């Protein structure tokens, strides 16, 4: 009963409190009502005048995109003058009539008109409709002549992106196009967007959007009650986007593209000390200017259906087995870990007596065999048998540590390109995790000649070669000029670094994380051994790229050929022994070549890959040889331009 009494009391309290609250609510609502009365009845006139006066409207004006230049300040992407026709929707009384007149003047087809109506649907009644963003001069002058008859039409001189080196640079610079809804989600675009503005779709244009896009301007107009402009009262000027400087040398890039003409493949050139990418060619290619105003169906189909796949940036998104170009690294790994005495002799007996492991046969590429080989000769003549045995002794895990350290298996240019591939450097752990299988020794053996699971991009091979050629120092590859590092100091430091004391830090060899521009080698003589063997491979008789050599020490280079199989070679193939052009295109080997030049005091590394080109020594090495001459001829100019005094020896 006591409980019940309490409950009644509690109920009363709640109700009483509710009434107090309700009274407060009524009071506050009365406050709102009186405020409404104030605004809408007492001060009505004041606000009506304000509302009429208050018809200031803003129009955003598009900014010019920042330009892109090469290492020598040559313009690679500029803004060209274009003629456009805009329609001010708020000044048009009859849209259909205006469109009809315009159609007759500049000759729009049915499809384009449909598109315009669709576009108009999405706009607000006072927006601007861009009828054409790229009129010819003839159309433009016609419009100007009949302008008095066209309601709301406004001929506009505007700018649009232009790529003077069109096909030669599209894989590096990329291209622009209309912003998609996804593009508009990016903050740098969202904050600076003006309808009709073109945004980067690929490459530097895309990843450097923040630098390039600029800021829009604002024009404020006073408008009357129906929204027509009366006078301009304010104009905040737009700001052009910033310039982006690349490390590319357009002359070398152009020449590289020319060398690749008609083939599918890639050429990469890198400064071995600074990591500057001098050229990064990919073939076949396409014209980025076609995308600026929207590519037409026919051109798009042609690009899409080309079997050599022009849209793929082969330098960073093409994956290839490195083949024999991997051998210098295998040799380096074996030497660094002290697995093998370079004087160890192995006999290569040709196809009749191949290398055998647990009953499986592994052949050398040379039918007759190389005979007795030591390590230097094995690199020089690219003997597979020697490397099978060396890889078996070394083991795949140690090899993968060195391979990763020298730049394979990871993305090279960071987030500059959204399609850059990581590649793959296999080890036992990887296979267990990814394929849930244990590693076979046979896989180690073929890994030793750069076949099997291993996958690399051409740029990674170039980086690998560069980091061996510079004496075993880690460099930071980049394609946008980096002003934060004093490269002159870096080069001097690396060149003067004669330190060859063994590093006592525990597990030094096993550590993959080396700082940029620091040594990666364990013992310098190992690096020198490999470099010397590569010299032999190019400049001594029986070397695989002997035919492409230069005797003039100024141009003399050292390199390593590679021929990577795209399929398993059967016994039948060995019997047939067909020439490259007798084999179906898709089944031909990829031709590879990596090199550094000049041999004495090297400065540049290069990688060449020709898809299904056949043998590296016949196809890839001659191209590299031609390009190297051009690179060295331009070196002095580059040095002078970059304010360095470290001239060639």
């Amino acid at each position, binding site marked *: 009963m006591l409980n019940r009494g309490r409950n009644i009391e*509690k109920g009363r309290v*709640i109700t009483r409190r509710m009434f107090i609250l309700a009274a407060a609510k009524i009071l*506050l609502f009365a406050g709102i009502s009186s405020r*409404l009365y104030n605004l*809408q*009845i007492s001060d*009505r006139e004041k606000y009506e005048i304000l509302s009429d006066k*208050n018809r200031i*409207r803003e129009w955003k004006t598009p900014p010019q995109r920042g330009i892109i230049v090469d290492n020598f300040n040559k313009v690679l992407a500029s803004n060209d003058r274009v003629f456009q026709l805009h329609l001010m929707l708020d000044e048009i009384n009859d849209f259909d009539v205006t469109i009809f007149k315009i159609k007759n003047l500049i000759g729009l087809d049915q499809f384009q008109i449909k598109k315009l109506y669709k576009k108009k649907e999405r706009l*607000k009644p006072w927006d601007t409709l861009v009828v054409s963003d790229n009129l010819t001069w003839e159309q433009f002058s016609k419009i100007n002549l009949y302008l008095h008859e066209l309601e709301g039409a406004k001929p506009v001189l505007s700018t649009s992106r232009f790529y003077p080196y069109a096909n030669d640079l599209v894989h590096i610079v990329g291209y622009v196009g209309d912003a998609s809804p996804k593009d508009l989600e990016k903050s740098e675009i969202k904050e600076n967007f003006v309808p009709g503005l073109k945004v980067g779709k690929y490459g530097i244009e895309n990843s450097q959007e923040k630098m390039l896009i600029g800021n829009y301007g604002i024009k404020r107009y006073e408008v009357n009650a129906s929204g027509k402009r009366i006078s301009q009262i304010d104009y905040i000027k737009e700001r052009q986007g910033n310039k982006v400087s690349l490390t590319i040398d357009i002359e070398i890039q152009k020449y590289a593209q020319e060398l690749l003409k008609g083939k599918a493949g890639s050429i990469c050139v890198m400064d071995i000390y600074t990591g500057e990418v001098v050229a990064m060619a990919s073939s076949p290619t396409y014209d980025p200017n076609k995308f600026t105003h929207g590519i037409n169906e026919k051109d798009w189909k042609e690009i899409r259906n080309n079997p050599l796949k022009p849209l793929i940036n082969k330098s960073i998104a093409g994956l290839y087995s490195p083949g024999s170009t991997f051998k210098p690294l295998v040799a380096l790994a074996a030497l660094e870990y002290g697995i093998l005495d370079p004087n160890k002799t192995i006999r290569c007996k040709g196809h009749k007596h191949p290398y055998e492991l647990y009953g499986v046969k592994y052949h050398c590429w040379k039918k007759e065999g190389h005979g007795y080989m030591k390590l230097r000769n094995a690199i020089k003549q690219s003997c597979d048998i020697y490397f099978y045995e060396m890889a078996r002794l070394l083991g795949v895990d140690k090899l993968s540590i060195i391979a990763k350290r020298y730049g394979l298996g990871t993305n090279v240019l960071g987030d500059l390109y959204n399609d850059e591939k990581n590649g793959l450097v296999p080890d036992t752990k990887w296979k267990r995790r990814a394929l849930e299988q244990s590693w076979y020794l046979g896989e180690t053996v073929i890994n030793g000649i750069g076949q099997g699971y291993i996958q690399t991009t051409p740029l990674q091979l170039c980086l690998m070669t560069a980091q061996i050629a510079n004496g075993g120092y880690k460099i930071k590859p980049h394609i946008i000029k980096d002003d934060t590092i004093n490269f002159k100091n870096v080069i001097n430091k690396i060149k003067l670094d004669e330190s060859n004391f063994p590093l006592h830090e525990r597990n030094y060899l096993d550590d993959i994380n080396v700082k940029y521009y620091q040594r990666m080698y364990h013992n310098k003589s190992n690096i020198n051994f490999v470099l010397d063997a590569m010299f032999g491979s190019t400049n001594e008789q029986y070397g695989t790229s002997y035919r492409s050599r230069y005797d003039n020490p100024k141009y003399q280079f050292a390199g390593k050929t590679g021929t990577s199989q795209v399929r398993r070679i059967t016994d039948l193939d060995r019997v047939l022994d067909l020439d490259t052009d007798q084999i179906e295109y898709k089944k031909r080997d990829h031709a590879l070549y990596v090199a550094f030049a000049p041999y004495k005091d090297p400065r540049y590394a290069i990688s060449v890959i020709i898809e299904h080109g056949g043998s590296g020594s016949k196809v890839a090495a001659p191209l590299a040889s031609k390009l190297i001459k051009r690179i060295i001829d331009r070196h002095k100019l580059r040095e002078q331009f970059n304010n360095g005094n470290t001239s060639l020896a």
Partner: protein
Amino acid sequence: MLRERIQASNYSFLDKLRSIDYLLILLIIAIGSISVFAIYSTEGGKFSFYTKNHIIRLSIFFSLFLVLSFVRVSTWYKNAYLFYVIGLILLLIVLFFGISASGATRWINLYFLNLQPSELMKIAVIICFARYYHRIQSSDIQSYKFLIQPIILLIIPCYLVMQQPDLGTSILIAGSGIAIIWLAGLNIKYFVYSGLLLLVSLPFVISILKPYQKSRILTFFNPDRDPLGAGYQIIQSKIAIGSGGFFGKGFLKGTQSYLEFLPEKHTDFIFTLFSEEFGFLGSIILLFLYILLIYRIINVGLVSRSFFAKLYCFGFATTIFLYVFVNIAMVLGMLPIVGAPLPIMSYGGSSLLSIMLGLSIVMSCKIYNQEQISVY
């Protein structure tokens, strides 16, 4: 006869239908229809994205409201704490995985709807507190032991919402919770003391606010400080409402809103647009509809037997009041712009969902108003 029916506590479907508060339903439909016209007008008289979405959401959530109205009030009671915990979990999800827009992270992407859990938390706090005070003896209410728990339960969600950052919603959640503590009968001196404490500490509170929040508060005191920047919204909103006059400029003829002077006109500033086009008369009618809605909700509380139902209804009525008041006072330039939607009128799925959910609990209190809920 009545007594027997209660004893059986087994209502026939017809009884349930008879107990429905049809006036309340009518009010919801009326405000809902007005909101459709208002949002249609924000799009310049085109039947496109926002209007379509708003109609779809209104119909879905209204149906949900009807269905959930038949859930027993004791079921809501039993799950009250569960709602609170779910609300908290959702707020934590927002904190870690939420999606952001214009500098604030408030939403969870559910594909068909970007859920804003802070809106749901308002209901969760009321129902949780109603259950809490339902159980407590009136003699215990004043003791610190029983006061400290609801305060902690209130501080956690307020803090989480403040982190998003969303000062407006955070204050409104706190307001709903405090309203229930007030209704439960906590001594007036506590409210007076904490009010004084807040006043004293105001300078410190302002110093920890985000720069944009500070600028909004400063702008509130002097809108002409920065007429094209932060003061813009308040000035434009006042001009729109003031120029509406007694009868308004007419449907689809609000020049201020039509010319895009008004930011966020379909969400927080929907009342501005409505008031510009329908004038003083329309605004007072809309205000009257809200008063009626609040009155009906209070009425349900009055006829309910259980403390839980009473506390919930009175609390929910106060929440609706707070939202209507804060929103309208804000667009009239009487309060700083903190971001609070106008219930049912504003475009926005989460706010609509939580209001409809809240109303369905009110309706279930009405249908089962004779049901007693044991204290344990």
